[in-house]
């Protein structure tokens, strides 16, 4: 198909932001499926509807997940994308790569697929975008030879992800990359063989800034934090102030609990450590002077997810503080308890948060052997409908 046939999408080659249409065209030069994808895109732009159909079940031997089947609804017109499955390839923690590894993936995908990809899918996988059923197995075999494996899909554990953490961030309170990698390796079976009521996601952020949005989109949210006082270097504080930094306007006024006060006379930043809720703001604003404490671990939260079916959930505090040291047995045990309870009680397509809502947090806490704590709630109940037993 020649360029002149896609006037609508061609329009998107212009403009300052890098153009995905150009990218498809680059791939289209070498690959028929990529070329047909241009046509399908153009058709959708014209019709204003999608032209993809539900995927059937396709995959590689021994796996129940990692591949999303996809078929075009106008195969006569676009035979090269009659099948256009994606493969989800589990990225290394923190999305670090050697160029060697990347080039290997490119070469394999040039051989077996459309040559199009997402770096990365929004769960975190490398998305290899578009191939046919027969190419899946050989492509997979070569990928594993190159050291890569499939990620999750379907009613399984999904590919865990982690922020850059200790690799390049001074605020990481936990080793996000190691936790992510360790849990991923531990739960290969849970990821590759769907057997749960629905999907389950784990994400790891090194601090409450939550660089992988774990609280919004992970069923099991691990966020680094500390239990002692944050560390203040008063000399550095004074340096900030001397340089004209509006410490009151930018920092102390914005502390959510007003735990900080700048003593102008003593030229000292005072902290009521008990009232610090570790929001990160003062640290974010004065990273040379204020740093997280040293007694570090993670807050574990449960239940984050998108709106389908009962509405979106942000994760809820489950364990205010958990030490996070390899081999992370406490976290793993907790995961096993959660999965067991969910597997036993969950309905089809019921995420763990929805099940907790349906059966009650109390029931859930008992099932996973956790004590109720005020940190789990913003506030106690207002209604008098208490079940005593």
């Amino acid at each position, binding site marked *: 198909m020649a360029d002149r046939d896609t006037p609508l999408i061609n329009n998107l080659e212009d403009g300052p932001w890098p153009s995905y249409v150009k990218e498809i065209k680059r791939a289209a030069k070498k690959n028929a499926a990529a070329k047909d994808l241009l046509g399908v895109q153009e058709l*959708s732009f014209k019709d204003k*509807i*999608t032209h*993809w159909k539900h995927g059937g079940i396709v995959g590689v031997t021994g796996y129940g997940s990692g591949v999303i089947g996809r078929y075009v609804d106008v195969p006569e017109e676009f035979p090269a994308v009659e099948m256009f499955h994606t493969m989800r390839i589990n990225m*290394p923690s923190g999305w670090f790569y050697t160029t060697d590894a990347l080039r290997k993936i490119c070469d394999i995908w040039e051989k077996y697929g459309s040559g199009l990809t997402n770096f990365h899918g929004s769960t*975190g996988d490398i998305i290899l*975008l578009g191939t046919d059923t027969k190419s899946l197995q050989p492509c997979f075999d070569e990928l594993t030879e190159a050291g890569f494996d499939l990620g999750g899909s379907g009613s399984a554990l999904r590919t865990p992800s982690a922020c850059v953490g200790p690799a390049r961030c001074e605020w990481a309170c936990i080793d996000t990359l190691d936790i992510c990698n360790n849990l991923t390796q531990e739960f290969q079976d849970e990821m590759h063989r769907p057997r749960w009521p629905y999907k389950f996601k784990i994400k790891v952020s090194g601090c409450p800034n939550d660089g992988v949005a774990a609280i919004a989109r992970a069923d099991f949210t691990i966020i680094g934090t500390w239990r002692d006082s944050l560390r203040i270097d008063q000399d550095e504080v004074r340096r900030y102030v001397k340089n004209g930094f509006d410490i009151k306007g930018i920092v102390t006024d914005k502390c959510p609990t007003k735990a900080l006060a700048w003593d102008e006379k003593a030229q000292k930043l005072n902290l009521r450590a008990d009232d610090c809720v570790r929001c990160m703001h003062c640290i974010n604003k004065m990273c040379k002077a204020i740093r997280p404490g040293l007694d570090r671990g993670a807050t574990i939260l449960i239940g984050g997810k998108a709106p389908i079916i009962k509405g979106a959930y942000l994760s809820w505090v489950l364990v205010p503080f958990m030490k996070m040291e390899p081999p992370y047995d406490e976290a793993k045990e907790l995961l096993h308890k959660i999965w067991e309870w969910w597997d036993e009680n969950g309905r089809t397509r019921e995420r763990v948060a929805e099940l907790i809502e349906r059966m009650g947090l109390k029931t859930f806490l008992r099932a996973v052997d956790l004590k109720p704590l005020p940190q789990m709630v913003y506030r106690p109940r207002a209604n008098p409908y208490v079940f005593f037993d």
Partner: protein
Amino acid sequence: MGKSDIGPPSYKKMLPAVIEKNYGKWKYHEITKPGVLRHVSESGDEVWTVRAGSPRLVSIDFIRDICDIADKYCDGKLRFTSRSNVEFMTPKKENVEPIIAAVQKLGLPVGGTGKAISNIVHTQGWAHCHSAATDSSGLVKAIMDELYPYFTSMKLPAKLRVALACCINMCGAVHCSDIAIVGIHTKPPKVDNSKVSAVCEIPTTMASCPTGAIRKNPDPNVKGLVVNEEKCMYCGNCFTVCPAMPLADSTGDGVAIYVGGKVSNARHTPMFSRLAIPYLPNNPPRWPEAVNAIKNIVEVYAKHALPDERMGEWIDRVGWENFFKLTGIPFTEYHIDDFTHGIDTYRTTTQFRW
């Protein structure tokens, strides 16, 4: 059959040398200019990072291009961020400008750091998903062409996270973004009863509907389903489990815009994004209605918010009354929540602005 369950390669093999050496020892950082970070270690080492925008849907040649840069300046290592940007890291300050030049030569912008609009987290859209009510890469391109100056500078009051999902399954952290763009259907599914019994499990399909809108076809001669159109809010959950109930509609599909969400715990606790504009039409290739609406919201925010105020924090301070007034967006009955926990959003005080 080859290997199985080997899991991802270890990140340890992928780290640049300076990172391996200073792992966990970083002390502080600064943003020396848009898109350039300098992290300093307790060891005295430093690492410079150049962040480049990417369209995310790329060819393998794109990957090879950026690998070339990394090979030249970064000892053959690079990383991607959680928002699909590319990061080139080097311990050498003198490499920074050459990296920037090389990146720009590829047509990629450098930026996305600090008080900027970073890359739009997004999804498959018409390029791959059967569920899409709008396109994703195309609409993102149209938006980012307009918001480009906010990516390459740091002139906003605070970070502004934009995300886009092509249907209300909301792949991505869309529902907690400063600005969330969501593809929506506005027409009930068209049941294809000739296929229903062949390709769908009837009880599962009926059970999938959050509002109980799906019933067995009352006509005993028709084996199939009917949708009570009054009860349908076009969520598409039935379509997910039953392909014979497509919702896609040329004129009905479009986008909604939600604002004021965040996930960081900095200052204000995490917040959901909330409905600003219930519906704008799909108007490819440039979606002018949606793009202008988003630009307007960004500009009003940029003008009125105080430093370090995220979108939601600004709205929290000035009130939603003022958000609607200042943006000129009409408030409609669609904005009023009538789902399960709706009443918790109703105002139980005489405190409000006129």
